[in-house]
């Protein structure tokens, strides 16, 4: 069964279309990642699904509830963590959790046990009495997640929950999400980190209000244009200029001091490219084949979408 179904979901802010005719489905129990540049419509989509923003047109059902008809019923079933999740800085970790338990009307007999479980789960037990304002960035995010989980929702909407969080805390946060996933919770998460997309079951690439591609990370990686050669050169600018003249050239992308060059057959192209660069006087530190990552595929897809 689907946890989320949208049909022609559309949202305009005056003349700007933030989300355009969006139809997609998320299965129950999936971890679905929405990724895309700023302003692609990720946050607007999440806000509509959380029932805090009405669509201009179209429909969305979350856990079978129509988001515009019964936002209150929706709120009881889902956990929503917006980008700037407001914790009470002067309240302790424990008091914040109690406060959210109050808002979500968690029965008082269940409260104590549930809070204890979440403190343990979010690795915050040792910090129960610390004011939320004095937690590190990573711990604040974990507390935010714990608060969003206080009413044991079946579905989580997380808007860039790991943005600006250090690598160690980020991995801990994802380990918690993996735990929830294994318990059957559906998770829709937005992230600016390409490597996090790899931790999702499915990923949707959002651009200009539309999901332009979606699928399992492995499948999306295959959308990169052909095979990839990595070139290290000290003359990046010159290399970029002459590359399009190379007969087997499809596309290139710059990553710091290296170029990722796409070609139909990397093994066959490699010696030919070496010779080509030599005749053009381009210095070459190294040239080798590598597997394209999600990032290469996404940059390729977004470039195409921009030209369209």
């Amino acid at each position, binding site marked *: 069964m689907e946890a989320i179904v949208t049909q022609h979901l559309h949202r305009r802010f005056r003349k700007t279309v933030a989300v355009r005719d969006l139809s997609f489905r998320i299965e129950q129990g999936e*971890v679905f990642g929405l*990724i*895309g*540049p*700023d*302003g*692609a419509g990720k946050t607007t989509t999440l806000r509509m699904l959380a029932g805090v923003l009405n669509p201009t047109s179209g429909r969305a059902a979350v856990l079978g509830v129509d988001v515009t008809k019964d936002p209150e019923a929706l709120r009881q079933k889902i956990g929503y963590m917006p980008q700037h999740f407001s914790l009470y800085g002067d309240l302790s970790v424990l008091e914040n959790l109690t406060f959210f338990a109050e808002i979500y009307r968690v029965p008082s007999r269940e409260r104590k046990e549930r809070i204890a479980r979440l403190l343990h789960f979010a690795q915050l037990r040792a910090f129960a009495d610390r004011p939320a304002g004095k937690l*590190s*960035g*990573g711990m604040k995010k974990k507390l935010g997640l714990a608060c969003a989980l206080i009413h044991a929702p079946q579905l989580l909407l997380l808007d860039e929950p790991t*943005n*600006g*969080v*250090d*690598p*160690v*805390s*980020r*991995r801990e946060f*994802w*380990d918690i999400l*993996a735990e929830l*996933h*294994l318990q059957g919770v559906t998770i829709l998460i937005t992230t*600016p*980190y*390409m*490597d996090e997309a*790899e*931790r*999702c*079951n499915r990923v949707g690439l959002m651009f200009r209000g539309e999901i332009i591609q979606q699928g*399992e*990370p492995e499948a999306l990686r295959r959308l990169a244009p052909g095979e990839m050669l990595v070139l290290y050169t000290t003359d*990046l*600018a010159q290399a970029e200029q002459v590359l399009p003249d190379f007969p087997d050239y499809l596309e290139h992308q*710059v*990553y*710091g*001091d290296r170029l990722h060059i796409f070609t139909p057959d990397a093994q066959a192209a490699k010696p030919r490219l070496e010779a080509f660069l030599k005749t053009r006087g381009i210095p070459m530190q190294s040239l080798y084949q590598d597997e394209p990552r999600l*990032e290469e595929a*996404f*940059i390729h897809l*977004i470039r195409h979408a921009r030209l369209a």
Partner: protein
Amino acid sequence: MNAVVARALTKKFGDFTAVDHISFKVRPGEIFGFLGPNGSGKTTTIRMLLGLIRPTEGEAQVLGFDIAREPQAIASRIGYMSQKFSLYPDLTVDENLTFYGRAYGLRGRRLARRKEVVLEIIGLSQRRDRITANLAGGWQQRLALGAAILHQPELLFLDEPTAGVDPVSRRDFWRLLYELAARNTTIFVTTHYMDEAEQCHRLAFIHQGQIIAMGPPGQIKRERMQGDVVEILCDRPQIAIQALRQAGIPEVALYGRRIHAAGPGLEERLSALESLLRQAGAGPQTLRIIPPSLEDVFIANVKNSIQ
């Protein structure tokens, strides 16, 4: 001459040691990355090198000047862009650059010329009359970088310059950094992002105030991973994860439907792991050794330094 030389640089705040005897060199024209968790000492190190706070112990030279004795000489030769870059939102792009240019002592024709050059570099020539607040996040960040390079500094300190910027803009920003490095600007950058860390010429992992690994990213990945990463695809990941944790595998993480298990000597134990998972009832499975990511190496080094 090295752009930065630090010897046993240390900063204590009361009982807390924020930076603990770190030594490193940054070569001219290189992009040197500082990668570490929150509170690991990245910003404190930058603030010492900028001459804003004095080290408790140790010493450092920036562009040949001693940070404790000659902070003024350093200030005019370096550029600095902080986590929260401070642009004036109600001024235009051009006005912000004028403001920062004057702050650095640029006047008249020289200021006008430098503004043209910088606008060209950061790609904002067409948007010079736009109100800063109306620019997209990625453009604001480029403008902040422009403000930091107006006075042609030889060395640029960037403290998490791309936090909260989307992947496409981040790539454009790094492309810009490479152009600057190619023109011989040395860049010292702190970051949370692994993909950015991989783009540095050299990298230092910093944790609890200490440098726990340093070198070119490729070399760190080859030399500093104590152990192997195994990717496991199986029918019942939940059971598999439990079994792996019970068997004492240090790192077990779920990636979509795949499990990544990391630890020393896993390659030799591959068939043992296979039968362990079979006995636990994780169902049919495929296991293979995969190359560690920089993040895998980082996490493994952090955990080692804690023990």
